[in-house]
């Protein structure tokens, strides 16, 4: 599997304070990585670095330009970045995912619009294509933003706290959809909600000032016996769960 990007001894800061220190991390094709860690631990900073919104203070991030040249990265932000009362339609928002491939004069071709219809259809939003965003439910809005993130056929999809606005009726569908997409693109999913992260995730990165990577093979049933749960979960019957190897 080819690498999509690699971070080498990367540190990030806002002013004098280091938010991330000495991170070595790589993401390969078809990875499905859960990025977990406490609030303020640097998860969002990690995304900003990948998106190019923040330059590393030290070290570097190297992209494989054959795969993600021209910035072919899909991004599903936390809901708060878009103004959901803004008069913009579902298909407008999905089309905005193609802006990266446009110059400053951003005409959408008929091919672009057909592509948007396909993506909207794939996400089950056909009936809402002409609706404005403030008529939608939280889960529907999330699907629209997912459409925006994937319309450009990215090789890497970044998801920032998607659990924040999933409505429970769509949660399983949403994660199943991600599993489908994972055949076409690597996925990096940030979540502070460690308890209910998707079972489709293949490996984990713990971010708290620094980054610890847990490849999938570390997670076995033996681990469950060796490392006790830091949080006690009480359920009936067999519940799929994952416990990560401890690190300092």
């Amino acid at each position, binding site marked *: 599997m080819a690498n999509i990007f690699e971070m080498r001894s990367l540190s990030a800061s806002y002013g004098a304070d280091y938010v991330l220190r000495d991170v070595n991390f790589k993401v390969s094709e078809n990875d499905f990585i859960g990025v977990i860690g406490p609030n303020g631990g640097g998860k969002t900073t990690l995304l900003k670095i990948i998106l190019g*919104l923040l330059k590393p203070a030290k070290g570097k991030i190297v992209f494989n330009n054959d795969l993600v040249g021209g910035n072919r990265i899909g991004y599903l932000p936390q809901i708060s*970045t*878009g*103004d959901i009362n*803004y008069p*913009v339609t579902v298909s*407008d928002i999905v089309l905005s995912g193609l*802006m990266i491939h446009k110059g400053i004069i*951003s005409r959408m071709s008929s091919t672009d619009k057909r592509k948007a219809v396909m993506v909207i259809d794939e996400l089950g939003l056909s009936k809402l294509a002409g609706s*404005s965003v403030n008529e939608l439910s939280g889960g529907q809005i999330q699907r629209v933003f997912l459409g925006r993130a994937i319309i450009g056929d990215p090789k890497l999809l970044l998801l920032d706290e998607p659990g924040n606005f999933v409505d429970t009726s769509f949660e399983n569908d949403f994660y199943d959809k991600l599993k489908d997409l994972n055949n076409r693109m690597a996925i990096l999913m940030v979540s502070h909600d460690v308890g209910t992260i998707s079972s489709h995730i293949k490996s984990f990165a713990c971010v708290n000032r620094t980054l610890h990577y847990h490849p999938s093979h570390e997670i076995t049933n033996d681990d469950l016996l060796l490392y006790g749960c830091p949080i006690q979960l009480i359920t009936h019957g067999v519940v799929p769960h994952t416990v990560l190897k401890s690190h300092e």
Partner: protein
Amino acid sequence: MEANIFQYEFIVKGLLGAIFASITAGLAGTYIVSKRMVFLSGGITHASFGGIGIGYFAGINPVIGAAVFGILSAIGVEYLSVKQKIREDSAIGILWAFGMAIGIIFIYMTPGYTPNLMSYLFGSILTVTYADIIALGIMSVVLIFYFGVFYRTLLYISFDEVFARTYSSYVDIFKYITTSLIALTIVLNIRMAGVVLVISLLTIPPNIAQIFTKVYFKIVMWSILAGFIGTATGYVISYFAGIPVGATIIFTLVIIWVIAKGINHLIMKYNIKP
């Protein structure tokens, strides 16, 4: 014969003025209402009054003074909000009153009587010149071109600036240009509606449009239509009643808004499908 010339001038100025005012106000107004920049735009309007005062004092065209003040304050506020160094509403409040203060100081320092002062505050048919109408006409063409060519770019920056920054390094440039064009639109419409009332000329039509549609492009179209009806009707009332035109335009627009709300209420209540 004299009456005919007055009537001809009244019709030409009124018709062209209403068309260009509604086009410029509809385009700029939809942008500021959607992006919730109404208070900011009010600040820019009142700051430009400082330019009017200095224009009087220096003996240059007050509209030029207002344009310079309006654009500088627009760029200033945009710069401060980009840097996120200020509490925006407080800064706008200061700018708002400071511009008015400068305007009043310079107008009172100007020797002699300042007959057109009222026309700048409340708008006036009598003082609207063909040069004003031509300037509004040029502004209409510029805005149609700008919003037409950069429609999606501007729509997406306004909707989700954070996302726009992931694919474009032009976000700040576009914000500066757009805010400057809005400042210029406001200043040119001051001749019609006056400093005190012009902001409503920009904000009421999109609010009428938004009762019926939530799609940006349609809001622009309906705003221009509502703006035209309000401006033309207000102009006629102003002419015959001798009331400042800004007041009659805004009064008409608010009546249209109330009627539109009522119609919408009936549509909702009886579930009428259009």
